[in-house]
C-alpha cells in the first residue's frame, strides 16, 4: 500500500550556510539511494512565504499569501512510499533527514493516483481539515466528499496530475529521531491543528493559474506550495 510522508519542521529564517546546505542535500541523496525501491514520489517544497492558503471552499474562497504565522512547524517536503505495512513505512521515515530536527508524519492513503507525467516544479495542493471534520472511508460523509472531488475532477482534472486521499488522523503516526533514538507518537504531530487529509499535484504554467485551480478544491483549507524540483525523483 501507499503511505504519504509529510516532512514538518521549523523553517529557516535566513539563507542557509552553503556547507550546511550541501551536507543536507547529500543526506537526502543518501536517503534516496537507500530507499529507492520504496519511494514513488517526493520533493522539497519552496518556502512557505511563497505559498498560498485558500479557505472557505470553492463557493467562497479566501486567499492568503504566505508565510502563515500561526504555525511554527511548516511543511517542508513530502514523499509517497510504497510499503507492505506500517513497520516498513516507519523504517523509511526514520531515515529521512528531517526526522532528526523536525518530524515526519506517516499517513496511510485511501487511494493514491500516481502522477502520469513528471511533476517537476509544479504545485502541491495540501488539503487540510480540522481533525473533527475527518471522516472515515465507507461512511455517507466520505461518499459525499468523493462526489465533491469527482465534480472538481470533471472541472479541473486536466490540470491535476495525480494525488491521494488520506485516512483519518487517528491512523497517522509521527516519527522523530532525537539523539539516535526513534520516537513514535500516535496521531499527527501538532494536536488540535488542521491536519492533512489529501493532496493533489497541480500542473499549470503559473502561480495565478495554480491558485485558481486550488480554489476549486473542496476542502476547509488548501495549502498551495510549489515543488522545488530538486529531488530528481
Amino acid at each position: 500500500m501507499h503511505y504519504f510522508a509529510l516532512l514538518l519542521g521549523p523553517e529557516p529564517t535566513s539563507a542557509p550556510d552553503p556547507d550546511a546546505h550541501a551536507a543536507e542535500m547529500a543526506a537526502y541523496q543518501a536517503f534516496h539511494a537507500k530507499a529507492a525501491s520504496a519511494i514513488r514520489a517526493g520533493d522539497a517544497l519552496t518556502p512557505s512565504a511563497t505559498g498560498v492558503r485558500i479557505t472557505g471552499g470553492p463557493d467562497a474562497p479566501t486567499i492568503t499569501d504566505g508565510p502563515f504565522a500561526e504555525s511554527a512547524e511548516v511543511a517542508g517536503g513530502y514523499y509517497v512510499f510504497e510499503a507492505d505495512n506500517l513497520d516498513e513505512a516507519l523504517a523509511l521515515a526514520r531515515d529521512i533527514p528531517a526526522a532528526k530536527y523536525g518530524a515526519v508524519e506517516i499517513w496511510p492513503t485511501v487511494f493514491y493516483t500516481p502522477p502520469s507525467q513528471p511533476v517537476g516544479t509544479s504545485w502541491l495542493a495540501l488539503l487540510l481539515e480540522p481533525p473533527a471534520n475527518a471522516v472515515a472511508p465507507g461512511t455517507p460523509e466520505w461518499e459525499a466528499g468523493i462526489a465533491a472531488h469527482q465534480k472538481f475532477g470533471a472541472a479541473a482534472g486536466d490540470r491535476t496530475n495525480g494525488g491521494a486521499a488520506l485516512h483519518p488522523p487517528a491512523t497517522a503516526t509521527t516519527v522523530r529521531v532525537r539523539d539516535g533514538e526513534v520516537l513514535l507518537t500516535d496521531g499527527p504531530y501538532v494536536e488540535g491543528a488542521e491536519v492533512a487529509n489529501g493532496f493533489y499535484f497541480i500542473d499549470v504554467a503559473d502561480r495565478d493559474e495554480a491558485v485558481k485551480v486550488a480554489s476549486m478544491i473542496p476542502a476547509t483549507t488548501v495549502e498551495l506550495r510549489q515543488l522545488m524540483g530538486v529531488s530528481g525523483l
Partner: protein
Amino acid sequence: MTNLDGVFRREWGPAVAALARWSGDITIAEDAVQEAFAEALQAWPRDGVPHNTGGWIVTVARNRALDRLRRESVRPGKELAAVVDDIRASADHADVHPVRDDELRMMFTCAHPALDPTSRLALTLRLISGLTVAEIARALLQSEAAVGQRITRAKNKIRHANIPLRVPPAELLPERTPHVLACIYSVFTEGYFSTAGPSAIRDELCDEGVRLAGEACSLMPDERDAQALAALVLLQDSRRETRVDDCGALVPLDEQDRGRWDRGRIARGLDRLQLAAGATGPYLPQAVIAALHATATSWQQTDWAAICMAYDRLIEVVDSPVARANRALAIGFRDGFAAGLSALDEVADDPRLARSNVVASIRADLLRRAGRRDEAVEWYRIAMDGNGSDQAREFLRRRLAECGGAY
C-alpha cells in the same frame, strides 16, 4: 454457568489470536469468537461441554466469520470487502487452530509503538486478557464510552495503517520486545499500584500481569528481560495482601507482616530471577531489590548495601529521578540518615519531580527516623499537599500524627 466463565476467559485470547491470524483482521476475529461464545452458551448446557473446548470455539468462530465475510463480500464498498479476497483464497480448505505463536503475534501487535501507550494497555486487556470494555473502564478509571472509543480507534489504525499482525523480524525485536514487556508490566502496575477503583478488578489485573509475564517467558524462552519481568511481578505480588491495611492505608514495608507474604510466589520469583541473569533492561535490578526485601528476615536484617548496588544499576539503565530518590532512602539505611538526606538533596531539584511528592515523603521519613521530628512534621505536610493516592495520604496522615503534627 460460572465454570463456563472460566473456560471462556482461558480460551478467549488464544481463539482471538488464531482467528486474527487466519482472517488478518482483529475485529472480525473478536466478533467471531464472541459469536462462538454465544453459541456455546446455547449448545454446551444442552449437548455437554466438548472435550476440546478451544478447538470447538475456533471452529465455530471460523464458520461464523466465513458467513459474515460472504455476506459482506456481496456488498461492495463495505470496509470488510478488502480482506475478503485474501481469505477466500485460503479459507475453505485451510484449517485454523490456535498455536502458541498466535498469542505472541497478538502481544506484539497490541503493544505496537505506533499506538498510544494507554491504547496498548486497553487493547491487551481486551484482546489477550478478555476483559470487557466495562471492566477495562473500571480498571483505568475512565468512562466506558472513552475506553470503547479508544479500542475502536486502535483497531481502526491497525487495519487502515496496516500494523502487521506478526512477531517482528529479528532486526526489529530488540526495539519491540521492550514495548511488549512494558505493556505487560503496566497491566500489573495498574492493579498493584492503582490508586482507586474496586479491589476486585485490581486483583484481576495483578493476576493477569503475573500470568502474561509467565506467558512472555514461555513464548520467548531466551528473552532474559522477560524472565526478569516475571521475577519482578511475582516478588512484588507476594506482598499484595499486606501492603494495604483494613482501613485502606498503605502499610510500609518495615511494618508489613512478613509471615503473610506469599512464599510460593517468592519461590517462583527467585527461580525466575536465576533465569534472568544477564538481562539488560530495567526489570532485573528492580527484581533484585524486590528479592532482597522478600528474603530478608526483617527490616533490620535487610542487605542495604546490596540494595544500594541494585539501585546504582537501575539508574544506569534508566535515569529515573524516582529511582534516585528511593536510592537515597536505601543509602540512609546503609550509611546513616544524614547520608541519605544529602543523597536526596542531589535529586530534589529534578524538574521531572516537580509535580510529585516522592522527595517530600522520603525526606520526611528520613528526618523522622533521624529523630528530627519538627522538620519531619513540616515535610509530611508538604508531602500531603502534593499529589498522592488516598491510600498514601492515609499513611502520611498517620506518620504526621506519630510525629506530633496534624494536617
